[in-house]
């Protein structure tokens, strides 16, 4: 930590806390064991605030706003509420919209039982989806020798894009299109097997929160993601001179 660290003090729920000005609301909450649900966030990857699951109520300068905890730096005097009825309702609604937008059929998914989307549905008390399901027609690319991308189960969290660019340095993954047509692509929207930049490292597989990215050879509920490598790689890289 550099010597010129500036400390900011703030209040999260009923707790007075302090943090380094570079930290986000989420970082400080984690340090004080205050739970905030996340989906696109992953320790070791840059924050994008894509999923809005970590929205918190932030009061600063007499104004209350909803802000993503993972992508909002702390400020002096902030008052933060992490779990109001309004936030619970919004988080459930976001989850329901994610379920309605894709084709998330848990019963026949490789990640059944080990999926972050499914886990949040249970922990946040989502018993059913109040929005009409879209049932989009999406593709599966199984061209790669070892890996598969099933766009039906993709929630566009961009963890794969970030780990590939930030950690592996290959930037094979990116995002194409807009609105309901948005999807992750390999290289210039080529079949994965023809994506020359892919090193085959498999990092994207293991950071994916759902069954959208998986290794071949696994059946329903058999795919376990292993993420321990990520904070380690990040820490080692930051130590380099």
């Amino acid at each position, binding site marked *: 930590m550099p010597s010129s660290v500036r400390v900011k003090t703030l209040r999260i729920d009923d707790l007075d806390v302090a943090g380094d000005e570079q930290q986000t609301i989420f970082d400080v909450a984690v340090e004080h064991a205050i739970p905030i649900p996340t989906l696109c966030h992953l320790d070791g990857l840059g924050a994008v605030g894509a999923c809005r699951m970590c929205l918190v109520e932030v009061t600063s300068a007499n104004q209350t706003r909803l802000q993503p905890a993972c992508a909002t730096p702390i400020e002096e005097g902030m008052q933060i509420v992490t779990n109001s009825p309004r936030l619970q309702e919004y988080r459930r609604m976001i989850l329901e919209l994610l379920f309605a937008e894709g*084709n998330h059929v*848990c019963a026949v998914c490789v990640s059944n039982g080990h999926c972050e989307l*499914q886990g949040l549905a249970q922990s946040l008390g989502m*018993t059913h989806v109040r929005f009409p*399901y879209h*049932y989009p027609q999406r593709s599966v690319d199984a061209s790669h020798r070892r890996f598969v991308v099933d766009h039906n189960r993709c929630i566009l969290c961009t963890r794969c894009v970030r780990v590939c660019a930030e950690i592996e340095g290959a930037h094979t993954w990116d995002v194409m299109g807009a609105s309901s047509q948005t999807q992750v692509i390999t290289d210039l929207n080529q079949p994965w097997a023809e994506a020359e930049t892919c090193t085959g490292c498999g990092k994207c597989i293991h950071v994916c929160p759902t069954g959208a990215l998986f290794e071949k050879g696994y059946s329903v509920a058999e795919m376990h993601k292993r993420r321990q490598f990520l904070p380690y790689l990040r820490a080692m890289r930051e130590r380099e001179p």
Partner: protein
Amino acid sequence: MTIAPMAQPTEPTSAPSPTPVSRKPRLATIWLDGCSGCHMSFLDQDELLITLAARADLVYSPIVDTKAFPENVDITLVEGAIGNAEDLAKILHIRRNTRLLVSLGDCAVTGNVSAMRNSFGVIPILERVYHEPALLHPATPQTDLPALRERVCPLHEVVHVDLFVPGCPPNAATIAYCLDALLEGRMPDLSQHTRFGK
């Protein structure tokens, strides 16, 4: 554009209450667009079924002989989604004659596997099943089978649902826990017992 949740259709005129009735409660189960797995799970309650029989009358079910869905049912467990015209007619009739309607299992709650055909449309699905395989007489059935709906949908898109029990299938203990609460006049909290895909 505003995004508002769908209001559940056909709200009952009075709020449903799980309060037990003075007579022996009347229980029904039905199997719509599903695989019967939820009913297998219901049967997996094993010896608890004997206890259940003492606490409620099973007035309609694939496992009893009653042909027509009766009136004045207290609790109906519905397995399966709404996939064809017959499913829709049945669920509307059931809703009119049921005090507490329970969506049992992922097909009833989400559409699940039954709804996987929705991304393709009815005609391509019928072509794929009845014409593409090397059949002796390829033909789409025109009689005796109810017409497929364009989209398979969960129950709560067409009727008001009082309780959602996710799971594929919900296990026997979950069903027993759920029925125990309902028969005691409580709404069960199932968050620790089941989830989508379980």
